[in-house]
């Protein structure tokens, strides 16, 4: 796995700021790869620790990928992409974790195969990911709120900062998204 050159990331962030939505999509695979590598290292550093500090991971990825001169607003862009990448990392992990039960096609574990998630939680993640895909199609903003809150672990004010919304709005979006997902996940179980 190669680490992308920092300027590449900075450039993509600048393009995104200039209104090029596709730039964020091109950024995703870079961030995804970096998060996997960092997650692996974090787990190596912590030995048998059973938690993965997702927030620290995203910060670390940012430190590593973004050039020192990156603007603050780009940082928010970065977090939005990183949230999606984090979701992919964790969902890939959860899918591999549940592969035995589902009998489906599974990619290798992106993280160490230690018990990062109990199986029940892994099942929840897979179900959530599917429901979240449908939600994002209907309401991208709600999808982003859930990604930042659930997969990165940001608080309401932090999420608001990243998305440039008021905390009250984030709270309402979150409440509505949670109810929608609950219904969807219990329906699709």
């Amino acid at each position: 796995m190669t680490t992308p050159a920092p300027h590449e990331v900075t450039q993509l962030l600048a393009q995104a700021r200039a209104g090029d939505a596709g730039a964020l999509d091109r950024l995703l695979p870079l961030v995804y790869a970096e998060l996997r590598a960092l997650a692996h290292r974090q787990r190596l550093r912590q030995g048998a620790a059973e938690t993965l500090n997702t927030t620290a991971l995203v910060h670390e990825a940012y430190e590593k990928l973004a050039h020192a001169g990156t603007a603050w607003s780009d940082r928010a862009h970065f977090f939005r992409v990183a949230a999606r990448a984090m979701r992919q990392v964790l969902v890939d992990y959860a899918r591999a974790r549940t592969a035995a039960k589902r009998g489906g096609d599974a990619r290798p574990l992106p993280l160490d195969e230690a018990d990062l998630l109990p199986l029940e939680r892994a099942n929840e993640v897979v179900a959530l990911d599917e429901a979240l895909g449908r939600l994002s199609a209907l309401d991208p903003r709600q999808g982003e709120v859930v990604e930042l809150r659930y997969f990165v672990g940001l608080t309401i004010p932090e999420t608001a900062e990243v998305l440039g919304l008021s905390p009250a709005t984030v709270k309402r979006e979150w409440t509505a998204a949670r109810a929608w997902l609950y219904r969807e996940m219990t329906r699709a179980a």
Partner: protein
Amino acid sequence: MDPHPDTTHHQRAKALFLDALDRPEGERDAFLAAGSVGDDALAAEVRALLAAHDAAEATGHLDRPLLDRDGGAFGDPAVGRAVGPWRLTARLGEGGMGAVYRAERADGAYERAVAVKLIRPGPDLGAAPPLGRRLAAERRILARLEHPHVARLYDGGVTAEGAPYLVMELVDGTPVTAYAEARGLDVEARLRLFLQVCDAVAYAHRHLVVHRDLKPSNVLVTEDHAGAPQVKLLDFGIATLLAEGDDDGGARTCTVGAMTPAYAAPEQVRGEAVTTATDVYALGVLLYELLAGRRPYELARRTAAEVERLVCEAAPPRPSQAAPDPALARRLRGDLDTVVAKAMAKEPERRYASAEALAEDLRRHLAGLPVAARPASAGYRLRKFAARHRAGVAAAAAVAVALVGGLGAALWQAHAAQVERQKAERVSAFLQETLASADPYEGRRSVTVEEVLDEAAARAGAELAGQPEIEAAVRHTLGTTYHSLGRPAAAARELERALALRRRLHGDAHPETAATLDALGALALDRADYPAADTLLARALAVRRRHPGPGAADLAATLLHIGALHQAQSRPDEAEARYREALALARRAGGGPSAALAHLGTLLYEQGAYVEADTLLAEAEAALRRRRSAEEQARSPRLAAVLNARAWVHYYLGAYDRVQPLLDEALAIRRRAFGPGHPEVGLALNELGWFHQDRGRYALADSLLREALATYRAAYGDRHEDVPAVLVNLAAGQRALGHLDAAAAYLEEALRIRRALSGDDHPDLAYVYNNLARVERERGRLAEAERLFREGLALRRRHLPAGHAEIATSLASLGQVVQERGRLAEAEELLREAVAVSRAAVGPDHLDTIWHEVGLSACLTARGTPGALAEAERLLTRALPRYEATYGSASPWTQRVLRELAALYDARGDRANADRYRARLTGT
């Protein structure tokens, strides 16, 4: 561009939902009626969302992020800020008292990055002033420490906001345990690395500093320019001044601060005084983990009380017992076990007096000298001497154990055969002489267990030539000893000779001949030579019906062997009859019915009669424990077998949390009773590995299964059916992890061994084919999967009686893959045949049959015709109560039935019923 109608609907529903949520519950209906302006679908959607909201609130749905984070915050205001001359560039993590950041000199005066620990004042840490004093103390301590293996303290101070901070050497290293694993270090290299840790700790102790939180993440390894590993000890942040003279008198008793339960000493867990001995304990745990590859206690997800009990009272397995492979276990047994045990003694005064003393003992060990940890008995020094002079020699202790066992068996044998006392004495005298010959003091080199037994066998021929009765008794004893030591070929040789002698002496109808026939029969059974076992045991039974022995114990023993044979031959009814007869005999005699209880209980468990099986097995366990001291229980293979069976009964009853302790104890007993390389240990490892795999603990399962494989291979070579069985389990683990190539490689190997065992045309190959087929299925190669399933089916059809249950399994697997390939009519036909075969084989009400019916209903649902759906409904509604009654509703089997029911009603468009079943699905 108009928004998509779904999006519009979603936005309207969202807005209405949020507004409704702001109203009191009683007003919501009216509000909805008004707000939805006649759009019933919208009103229904919002009602569903409101209900979902209440349920989500009640269950805390998604309330917590997927993974806990420990305090990390987006836009951490500290990152980017200056702290003194340092600019914080990234958050590295959380320490005992606050966050740690990576930092650089703001003015660029200093190139290297450092670690800055920013102390977070908080209610849990008390008011700021004492904290400030503690930190000042810490700075003074740390500033005094200057050692190549201790991370340096550079600077410290107080931020503009008044938060104290420390600036330390930034160590970009790997935790010592992970480093050792990654580099594949051998035991010597690990010890040398650990000696660096000891030196650093000893240095700190000389400066009156206790670390108090030694653990791998605080012991990092970097490599110097020559690539040599260098240990750096981090985080003396919670060190406490030992000496008087601290300006804060309360510091010594302050209990604030981190400790990590896995490495905490008993006194630390109890909140008692912490001394240098506390660090010695943590060093012991670290050494344990470095050597054995795992920690002494499994503390994850335990309550504080459980942790305290385990750490303060439970004796952990020795590192050699915890070691993942037999070679490592042998390397650790003895000195290193003892050193770790002494470092980890529960009472501080029994530990090494210092880290230096611990290091010194390890240095002695590395030099091949006796360690101080153990009082040097003559025997110990002797073994040490022997080991230095001849590597790989078996410990005299093992020889003694084998011979004591042999003697015990010989004496029992003498009694059971009712030979006269004199004969018994001569038998034991002979064995004692052999024992003496194994003693190095007799002027010979040390010998292995097998050599002692071989020696006895050879001498029996020469020295007992004129005494056939004694020779027969000795050979019988040797044979049963070889058998119980897991050396079947030698056992057969000795028992055959004993049998020949006894036949010549007494003829076939004599109790002594019957005893040897029975022993040979049991051996043949273990070697899976069923026709031979059948003949031998039938002849033993005929004699023992006339000579049942005291308390009918001999007759009962043979009945149990025959029952076990029937069980192995899949003739459960006959097995049950034999076991019940043996049980009745044992109960009548008032003796110990535990063996019969255990056999019958195990059989009933295999038949799926879990509740009765558990009752019998519980009685067997109680009987076995009653008659044995704790010491005897700890090495009773019978107890292990019963615990094992109980474990699986609990498993099938869905009481998963009760399974592991039973399997763990069974494994520990077998290790002690049989020694590490014995096939019984392999069996226990295989089962424990399977269980952990089933529970998703793949890494652990993999190490257990690998050890099982190594154990079997050491005992049998490749030529035993247990070897491919473990390979298939290892493959299943790899498959679950998505490592399909690795899974396929294991299966190819299993296939090769199976073929070598029984040729290309044997029904047991089908098992491997089916597993290969599952791998192919997951690779998306359905055609190849189908081909392999067909191959397995063909083998079974050729070799098994028509209507065998395994044919049904093959048909069901094939049917499923054909269904996935979209050939529904053909799939239905296969699945119907699976059901029919299963009905004939095990009966229409057997759970296996019902399981095949569930598979058939899935296909019927996919077909979707009204007739098919009606039949699926009938099958599933019959299956559900059976699975619930047997396994409860949370088991994966019951859950699948519920899922199929929901799918069925979905297919029918019967939303109410579909939801009713879906509501009963757990998490998935």
